[in-house]
């Protein structure tokens, strides 16, 4: 690994940190337009974070140290995940140490810390949110792993850059197995990021919320880190989708200024399209009952397994 690769590595993480709030802003804007509302500013998530970082933090009296550590761990996990996913270049030094299975493990670790922190204060909402989050997680996590396995069987590796480079090399069209797993992936993405058919990011109605219920007790900088981590998670999932299904424009060699000139606009265009697509999905679908979520995710899991079977049967 050359120094230039380490620069790529840091650049990717920094880009994710910077772009994640904007991406959420863009998604909210698209949603507002589609719903005939006046759109909030693209920079609103930034202002929100800025505001939270300058407020006094209130922590519940019986919160343990775990409660204060969790936001940093969750945030750190998401930043690290951004460094493993090849969003601009595939020459990432960190990827040697963490492949796609470790990436899913990283997401699981973040989830675990978040749910434990939610249970720490001991309010009814916290445990309710934790329970629901684990219900979503235990089906979404295997579905995501199965989606990744389809791509890794095609490219004989579980390292994401190898997968991306193989899929981008052109002799793989959109194979039927990948089509199945793409459907599964979209369902997982919606569920994992608390988007509309599963959870409503705009509501504080207790009976339906999942993610918001878990971060209820957080305030100020801790809340800011949690929110930023959630934005990063959405960004990371979208980038995993690009890496598996739309790997075009990602620099496969040592990245240089010329490579960046292609990679950054390509990523921006893909992100804009993804935001619009997500907004459309969220606008045309309605929030479902909590106990319907396992059916939704079970469908995703089965689609992913089907993708794997199709790959084994057709070798495609």
């Amino acid at each position, binding site marked *: 690994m050359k120094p230039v690769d380490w620069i790529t590595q840091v650049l990717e993480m920094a880009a994710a940190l910077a772009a994640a709030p904007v991406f959420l802003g863009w998604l909210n804007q698209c949603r507002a337009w589609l719903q005939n509302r006046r759109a909030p500013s693209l920079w609103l998530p930034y202002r929100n974070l800025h505001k939270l970082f300058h407020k006094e933090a209130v922590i519940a*009296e019986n919160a343990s140290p775990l409660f204060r550590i969790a936001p940093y761990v969750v945030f750190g996990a998401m930043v690290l995940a951004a*460094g493993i996913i090849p969003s601009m270049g595939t020459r990432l030094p960190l990827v040697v140490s*963490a492949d796609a299975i470790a990436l899913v493990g990283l997401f699981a670790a973040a989830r675990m810390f978040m749910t434990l922190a939610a249970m720490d204060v001991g*309010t009814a909402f916290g445990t309710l949110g*934790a329970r629901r989050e684990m219900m979503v997680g235990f089906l979404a996590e295997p579905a995501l792993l199965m989606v990744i396995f389809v791509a890794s069987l095609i490219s004989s590796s*579980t390292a994401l850059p190898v997968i991306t480079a193989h899929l981008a090399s052109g002799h793989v069209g959109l194979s039927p197995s990948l089509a199945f797993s793409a459907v599964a992936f979209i369902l997982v993405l919606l569920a994992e990021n608390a988007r509309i058919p599963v959870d409503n990011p705009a509501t504080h109605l207790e009976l339906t919320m999942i993610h918001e219920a878990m971060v209820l007790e957080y305030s100020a900088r801790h809340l800011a880190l949690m929110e930023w981590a959630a934005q990063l998670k959405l960004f990371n999932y979208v980038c995993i989708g690009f890496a598996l299904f739309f790997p075009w424009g990602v620099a496969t060699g040592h990245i240089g200024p010329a490579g960046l000139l292609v990679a950054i606009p390509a990523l921006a265009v893909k992100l804009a399209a993804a935001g619009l697509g997500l907004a459309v999905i969220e606008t045309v679908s309605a929030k479902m009952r909590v106990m319907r979520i396992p059916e939704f995710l079970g469908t995703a*899991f089965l689609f992913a397994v089907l993708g794997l079977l199709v790959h*084994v049967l057709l070798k495609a």
Partner: protein
Amino acid sequence: MITTLPPLLTGCVALLCAWVLVGLAGLLRPGSVRFAGRTLFTLGAVLGLGLAVLAGASLLSGGTERLILPLGLPNLPVHLRLDPLSSLFLFLLGASSFGISVFAGGYFRQGEGTLPGLLCLQYHLFLASMGGVLLANDAYGFLVAWEVMTLSSYFLVTTQHRIPEIRRAGFLYLLMAHVGALCLLLCFGVLQGGSWLFTFHAMRAAHLSPGWAAVAFLLALIGFGAKAGLVPLHVWLPDAHPAAPSPVSALMSGVMLKTAVYGMLRVGLDLLGRPLWWWGLAPLILGLLTIFYGVVFAAVQTDMKRLLAYSSIENMGLVFAGIGLTIVFAGSGMPAVAALALLATLYHCLNHSFMKSLLFLGTGSVLHATGERNLGRLGGLIHRMPWVAWLTLIGTLAIAGLPPLNGFVSEWLLLQSFLFAGQLPHAFVNLLIPMGMALVVLGAALAGYVMVKFYGIIFLGQPRETSLAHAHDCGRLERIGLLWLALGCLALGLFPLQVVHALGAVTGQLVGAAVPQASAHWWLLAPVPGRSVSYGPLVFLTATAAVVLLTVFVVRLIYRQRVRRGPAWDCGFGAATARMQDTAEGFGQPIRHLFQPFFEIERELPEPADRTPRYRIAIRERIWRLAYEPLARAVGRLANAAARIQQGRISVYLLYSFVTLLVLLAVALIS
């Protein structure tokens, strides 16, 4: 003779004998907790450490030592052998028993059923017999040690024999263990292949027809599967493991289950020679079923030790699925991949031994501090018992399979070997394997659910009972025991390449291929032949720590406000009490709802006008009603039928003898 004594094996045997002596010493002052509990258990722990050192040295040297001891019946000496496979499991026994014994030294108290001195004897006999199982090189020695192991653990399970449920659990354990032992007896009978020599050496040399070999394999699978808690032979495990005192539960879950794995590997991959690939399907499918079954039941438990027992069932499923996969690959002429699958299996055995012992000991401390095993009456213990809580957190994260801890490494290895399934030459299995992979992954994710429930309800939140305010942290010896096991979890997670290196001798012995070291770096695990995949937990941990610390630093830099403590927000609802948190039943509700057909649920719901409403829900396994109860009734009927010829009068019995003699005479005359 004396000059050629093999050093390591002799040392191991001496340590096992010393364990027995330590146990016997407990009888000197059986009532003294100070002597039997503190001193002798600590001494036993040191012996365990010595065993781990000797076995580790043997494992690293990769050599084999043999010894014949002229004990027992004339012309039937005891054959012992220390090869890489037994070294590995001896190391596991020594290393985890060190932590457990040190903990036990601080754990046992007066007035808990059996006297401490007697407990000490049973405990150390149990340890020594497990060592005997691992060292035996003939069927006699193996089965004798196996029986001593079963009996000593039976007495340990029934320590609190005044409680009827515990006596029942002990009886069930004894029954199932003997069903298994009978199968093993038959299995060794088949394995000697007409030579009537019961040394393992002769069994390796015997040439069995494929049919008989398959019978032997199946018998071994039933026999060892009953010990390991493979579905549907698992019914004793969730009763027996929680009934024992916590250090014994730890020993049973952490170590005794591994002797079953050892036996399965010894028979399936060593004594039977080259296995046929389709034998592997049985452990693979049973293992996959066990994973799913165990974890789903673990998610709905309300007793913390039962929850861990079901989680052990799940983990043994994972191990047996790994064994099945190893045999499928080895029988299909893919030794390198078979070595990878075997590596995952062995690694998981080591991991589970440390993680599950740690968790069981943690529940032991909680049990002593609070007197409660029901999750619904615990909570908030992280404030009262910080040592136990933080050390248990390591075990919790490890068993949930999170990087960079040890549970992740073995799951990673297992998934990597599953990913090779597409290259198998059997089309049917190729279709089966993705489903298996899906089950493994689903099991791992559900294990996360179970562990959040376990940890969150015991240690986090508000105390659900007022009595919990008096809970105290564990003592010094207990802390050392927990710390040792937690450090083991960390070390196994952070230095996988060194562990894989040490395990190379075992894979070489069993499937004839060591895992190639594709990586040039000591911190990077890249065991997959011909593929560019790798995992570096140290870099992973360093990167995570760096990012987290940088975040803390930057946040401190820009954040100028102070932090204030206040009452919990809870959406502004002021009247929240500790009883409004989720109970164990509540947290398991989604799983109960989703997998309803698996359970037999008995609900006790209050009437609408009830002044003191009570809500109770009991979950049983359907397998009891579908299989075991009809079986028990059938056995009862058979026994009743047989009882008809028992008249209780001496003349009738004399008549029976007379008739038998006549029949025998007739047979002799005719032939």
